[in-house]
């Protein structure tokens, strides 16, 4: 290991803090397990009860991590001083100086909504421009889009943006024809081509946005701390209108800071990398963070899906630090607009995180990163454990009712053994679980109201308090639904099922009833059967489980209603789930809102929607020329390919664009000669029906 990395002060402190955290978690878990075994009818002596106590222990340990971490964060933020906050290393005097290294801002996209991506890019660019340090940054849109229409749309948007901002040679666009290794492959491709030109790269997601000041600050922190390999910010959720996303972004704003501070308290330089809104030192990243392909087939083999965790672990393995700048403002992202979108995203993350288990014992990784792998997997496996716990406890409840009690389990005993149940113990355990789960929320509330005095930014003390209460109800209602889906995801992954890599739908849209029935129907049926069985066999146990059974039965309406933007707006109107960015939006977010509202959907004078990229590439002379130019030099093709393309051209000319499949469109788009011929022939066509199919206005008979 390089001398640069030896004896970092934080390493010793982090060891002590981690041992302390593990001790606290163990103590609380052991106590809770003892309580649990005492509550059970046979005091944890049967096989079923042992299994229940073990699963309960794993779950309790899992929730205790969050509790203790939040408590650590609360204490840190109450003190208002954190000697290990990475941002505090960047002194005021250093902030005024010039930046010595060049930075690339990477925006990897794959079939995203083009106008949203480019609007964010435009705002980030303009924000950076106002800082006067734009010359130190370049922007790269790295597209993996497979949809031919989106591909052309991106090119057109790029050209338009470059022209309007005067950003030619500042904003670059690259489209990969083969999206090898998905996002991580896309970034690696950038590194191989142009990485040597830059000291740092800041990775964005399609829904990321950062202010110019925060970008500059990140670079300054990296320049100040030469041992930092990755600096992750804690992005805040903004800009959402649907009910569930507003709840999520509110929770992110209120509880996020103490969890962020807590994470930093424990992890220090062994922190997370979440794959976006982070700055990376390019040279060590290129040297150490290339990802191998895991042996075997997906889901547990093949390409590493959740690459960010592994990249952080590899960076750390090479000695570079990974920090979380939890207090750096101006970093934003957007929450999934609906529950179903959130679950689709979780499906991918689940597979990726479980895949990390294969790397758990890789040589050279730091224990903290092994723990992060485990933590990532537990985020989903815990759902399956919860499901298992519920199944076991249901089995126990049913068995207890059906089995004839044995009052004399020991032969020749004088007195009977009465089955005794202590409801007060069960209530105590329930209350302590509640405290572990909900205390962080109240700590956050206390922090905002009494220490930071920021309640006005959330609409005032009363509205903030009511919003937290409503958020607790929301999380109560959605937890069983998420649990069921996550259990399913884990199960499918473990039995060898895998997910595709489709893009998220990030814009506001509501879940239809049909879609909700399709997704939540089985869960609702399960809830109904479970509830009915318990109701008739063990009524008291049924009442204990209603907080889980009822949301499962109501999952369909809950999913539909929570995706409603009108409900979200109604919440906003009455002052619930308000966030500081809504009450006093920063300039960048204000601009984003204005620009999103004023977007054009088609281009004059031919009424082709901007989304019909392929048609535009054929009809619009500018887009046609642009696309052909970006394709580069014409390649020599095999006669069979040329023949096939000529046939496609003929088909396009005689039947119109709608008859072409995405694959056929893509093939034509890949051939500049074909595309030019198509453009020429179309503009020369005498067949008005065909012309209209391509978006030409109807024939005008009079002049």
């Amino acid at each position: 290991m390089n001398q640069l990395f030896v004896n970092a002060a934080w390493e010793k402190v982090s060891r002590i803090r981690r041992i302390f955290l593990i001790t606290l978690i163990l103590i609380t878990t052991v106590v809770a397990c003892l309580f649990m075994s005492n509550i059970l009818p046979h005091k944890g002596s049967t096989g079923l009860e042992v299994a229940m106590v073990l699963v309960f222990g794993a779950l309790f340990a899992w929730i205790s991590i969050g509790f203790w971490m939040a408590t650590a964060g609360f204490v840190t933020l109450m003190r208002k001083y954190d000697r290990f906050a990475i941002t505090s290393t960047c002194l005021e005097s250093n902030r005024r100086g010039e930046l010595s290294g060049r930075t690339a801002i990477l925006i990897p996209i794959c079939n995203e909504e083009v106008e949203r991506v480019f609007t964010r890019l435009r705002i980030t660019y303009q924000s950076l421009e106002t800082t006067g340090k734009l010359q130190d940054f370049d922007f790269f849109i790295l597209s993996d889009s497979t949809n031919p229409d989106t591909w052309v749309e991106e090119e057109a948007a790029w050209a338009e943006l470059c022209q309007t901002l005067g950003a030619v040679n500042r904003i670059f666009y690259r489209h990969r024809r083969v999206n090898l290794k998905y996002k991580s492959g896309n970034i690696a491709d950038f590194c191989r081509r142009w990485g040597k030109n830059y000291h740092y790269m800041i990775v964005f997601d399609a829904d990321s946005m950062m202010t110019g000041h925060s970008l500059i600050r990140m670079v300054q922190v990296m320049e100040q701390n030469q041992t930092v390999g990755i600096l992750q910010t804690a992005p805040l959720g903004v800009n959402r209108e649907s009910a569930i996303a507003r709840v999520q972004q509110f929770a992110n704003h209120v509880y996020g800071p103490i969890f962020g501070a807590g994470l930093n308290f424990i992890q220090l330089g062994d922190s997370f990398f979440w794959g976006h809104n982070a700055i990376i030192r390019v040279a060590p990243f290129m040297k150490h963070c290339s990802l191998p392909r895991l042996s075997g087939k997906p889901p547990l083999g093949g390409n590493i899906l959740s690459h960010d965790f592994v990249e952080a672990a590899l960076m750390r393995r090479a000695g570079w630090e990974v920090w979380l700048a939890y207090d750096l403002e101006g970093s934003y992202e957007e929450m999934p607009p609906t529950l179903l979108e959130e679950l689709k995203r979780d499906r991918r993350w689940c597979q990726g995180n479980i895949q990390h288990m294969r790397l758990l014992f890789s040589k050279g990784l730091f224990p903290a990163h092994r723990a992060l792998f485990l933590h990532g997997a537990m985020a989903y496996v815990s759902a399956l454990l919860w499901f298992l716990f519920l199944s076991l406890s249901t089995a126990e409840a049913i068995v207890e009712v059906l089995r004839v009690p044995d009052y004399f389990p020991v032969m020749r005993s004088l007195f009977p053994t009465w089955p005794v149940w202590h409801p007060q113990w069960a209530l105590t355990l329930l209350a302590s679980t509640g405290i572990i789960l909900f205390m962080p929320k109240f700590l956050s509330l206390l922090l905002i109201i009494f220490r930071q005095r920021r309640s006005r930014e959330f609409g005032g003390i009363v509205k903030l308090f009511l919003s937290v209460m409503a958020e607790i109800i929301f999380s109560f209602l959605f937890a069983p639904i998420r649990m069921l889906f996550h259990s399913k995801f884990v199960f499918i992954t473990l039995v060898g099922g895998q997910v595709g890599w489709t893009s998220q739908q990030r814009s506001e849209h509501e879940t239809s009833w049909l879609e909700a029935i399709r997704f939540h129907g089985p869960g609702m049926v399960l809830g109904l059967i479970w509830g009915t069985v318990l109701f008739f066999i063990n009524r008291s146990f049924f009442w204990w489980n209603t907080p889980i059974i009822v949301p499962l039965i109501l999952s369909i309406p809950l999913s539909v209603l929570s995706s409603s933007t009108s409900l979200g707006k109604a919440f906003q109107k009455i002052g619930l789930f308000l966030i500081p960015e809504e009450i006093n939006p920063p300039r960048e977010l204000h601009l984003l809102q204005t620009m999103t509202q004023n977007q054009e959907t088609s281009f004059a004078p031919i009424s082709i929607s901007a989304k019909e990229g392929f048609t535009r590439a054929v009809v619009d002379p500018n887009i046609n020329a642009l696309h052909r130019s970006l394709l580069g030099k014409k390649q020599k093709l095999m006669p069979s390919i040329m023949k096939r393309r000529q046939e496609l051209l003929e088909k396009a000319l005689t039947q119109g664009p709608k008859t072409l499949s995405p694959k056929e469109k893509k093939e034509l788009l890949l051939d500049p000669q074909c595309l030019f011929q198509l453009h020429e022939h179309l503009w020369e066509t005498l067949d008005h029906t065909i012309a209209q199919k391509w978006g030409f206005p109807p024939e005008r008979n009079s002049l």
Partner: protein
Amino acid sequence: MPPLDSFGADNPTVQSERKPDLISPDWQEAFHRVSLYLQTLNVPEGKALEFTREVLRLASSNQRDTAGSPSIPEAMRALRELLRKQLSLLRKESFNPQDVSLHENLNGLSSMPPLNRGFMVPDAIDLIPWRTFLVRSLQRAVTIVSRPLIFLILFIFLILLFVLLTLWK
């Protein structure tokens, strides 16, 4: 776009050159097609009209040479020919040059900076770490147990354990 009847109205030379077949439905369509093309290039209306006139004139003379090919393809070919010649002039006009300049200067336009190739090779990483871990642990255990003193302690411990288990009721 003004009607074709006004075509060349402000230009006596053009008006005198206008042929009767130029306002036939065939040429009307050609006129619209050319106008549309220029509109998509964002050429301002006045300039586009001037251009269209020129294109149609060129096309009609070409049509005579090619013994009567349809007017739309002829007009479009003439337009392309003329665009090639005159786009540089158009660009110097005061209107927004965005589209036309884009159309003209695309040869050599690149959306990417010049390549500066680097390497990114995966560091050695154990792809079957579970097995390696087990093997490593076993090897370590064997190494430890093979030390005489540790072997003796373990042996005594095992005997004690055996005795305890035997006596256990």
